[in-house]
């Protein structure tokens, strides 16, 4: 009972904070799906190679702060980064001739191409710089009605057991009509967005593994066969999930339209 009471202020604080936060997800506006005559796809992939995640040391936060504890965090993070970099070298070498951006582009083109209302333009643009300025310029330069930015990252989890592919996806309006729809749905966003969501897919290499080095070997063996398959699958699954999420808006809009048509309009009997 006492424990529950102690947790109450924390729960209250969490509730207040989450209430204040701007909702991160912006569902595709249903009305927009029938007004997009062309979409340019921009894949942003700034990584040149797979990256090892490390678990950040939190000694300073747990210990109440202080320079010494902050320096402990720095030293622990450096040690973890050293170990991870040592272990991941073989995986990177095995993937030197593997073109992950190409896999991502092909998967997205295949899945989004099946959504007729998206009217996907060709070719897909690839941006290797993480610069927000360059991404904004890519949106501004586009002659399409809408621009879909897919910002992709791929990593190995801290214990190397999972190959993770994640993406931040944003849909940008390029016509007055679509911009008005975006502003109407989410007036708090500047620049206006038609759509925003995050996706994560993860695939394992089997296991369990005794340590990072053993897991890295499993990913790298046979010229990175397992890593290549996991990345191929990651790209394919990511594209499917993005397409499914976009299509959901279309389906909801259709269902809404059907309901509206079936429901008698007041005063027309």
């Amino acid at each position, binding site marked *: 009972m006492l424990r529950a009471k102690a947790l109450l202020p924390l729960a209250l604080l969490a509730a207040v904070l989450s209430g204040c936060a701007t909702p991160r997800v912006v569902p595709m506006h249903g009305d927009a799906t029938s007004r997009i005559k062309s979409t340019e796809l921009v894949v942003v992939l*700034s*990584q*040149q*190679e797979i*990256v*090892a995640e*490390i678990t*950040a*040391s939190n000694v*300073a936060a747990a210990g*109440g*702060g*202080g*320079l*010494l*504890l*902050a*320096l402990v*965090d*720095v030293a622990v*993070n*450096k040690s*973890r*980064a*050293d170990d*991870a*970099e040592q272990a991941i*070298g073989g995986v*990177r*070498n095995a993937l*030197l001739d593997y073109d992950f*951006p190409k896999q991502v582009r092909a998967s997205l083109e295949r899945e989004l191409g099946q959504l007729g209302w998206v009217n996907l333009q060709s070719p897909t643009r690839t941006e*290797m*710089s*993480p*610069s*927000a*300025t*360059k991404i904004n310029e890519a949106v501004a330069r586009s002659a399409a009605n809408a621009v879909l930015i897919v910002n992709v990252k791929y990593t190995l989890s801290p214990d190397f057991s999972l190959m993770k592919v994640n993406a931040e996806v944003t849909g940008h309006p390029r016509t007055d009509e679509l911009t008005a729809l975006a502003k109407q749905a989410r007036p708090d966003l500047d620049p206006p967005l038609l759509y925003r969501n995050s996706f994560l897919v993860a695939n394992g290499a089997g296991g369990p593994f005794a340590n990072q080095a053993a897991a890295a070997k499993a990913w790298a063996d046979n010229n990175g066969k397992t890593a290549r398959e996991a990345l191929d699958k990651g790209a394919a699954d990511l594209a499917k999930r993005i397409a499914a999420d976009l299509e959901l808006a279309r389906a909801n809009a259709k269902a809404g339209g059907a309901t509206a048509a079936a429901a008698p309009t007041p005063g027309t009997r």
Partner: protein
Amino acid sequence: MSGVRWASAAGLAALLAACGGVATRPMQFVAEPRQAPSAGGGAGCLVNVLAIEDKRDSASSFGSSANFEQFANNVPDWVKSAVKSLDGHGRKVVISDPGTGTASPDALAVTVRIHRAYVHGMVTSRTSQVVLSNQYERAGKVLGTQFYRGSDTSVSWSSSPEEVEGGMNAAMNVALAAMSKDLDRYCAGKQN
């Protein structure tokens, strides 16, 4: 006491956050002192670098930060300086002008290819990576191709261009150490 600790932490955080910056100049290579080749290695060996080919996916990308694109743009020149630094210790390294790369029959001819050059942040650390490959030839016959990966992991104190340049140079020096050994080996006619 608690106030002092918070002030220290805030000071460190401010130091870490306030530094950094955008690279506004090309990256400069600085060689580490190298050991002389082993006996019978490459004494009197002429190494003719036929070409330095940029095989990166993007010539303007330098990894997870957009601040160092100026460094990315001049990676081929940086690699050229690095390879040139292998001159000496009984080896003569000559880098041909682009398009004029023909080697004398006796020279060891090398085509250098740049595959990766980038930095990536890892919480409070940073990894610097460079991957090169060399194709070795003599008298028009390909002797072999070797890959060289140089890597450096350091604490990212300021993320300044100087700090990033230092990490990239450390990574390049690791790659060059392996390349230097191979040059000795190929110069001595030992290809395996």
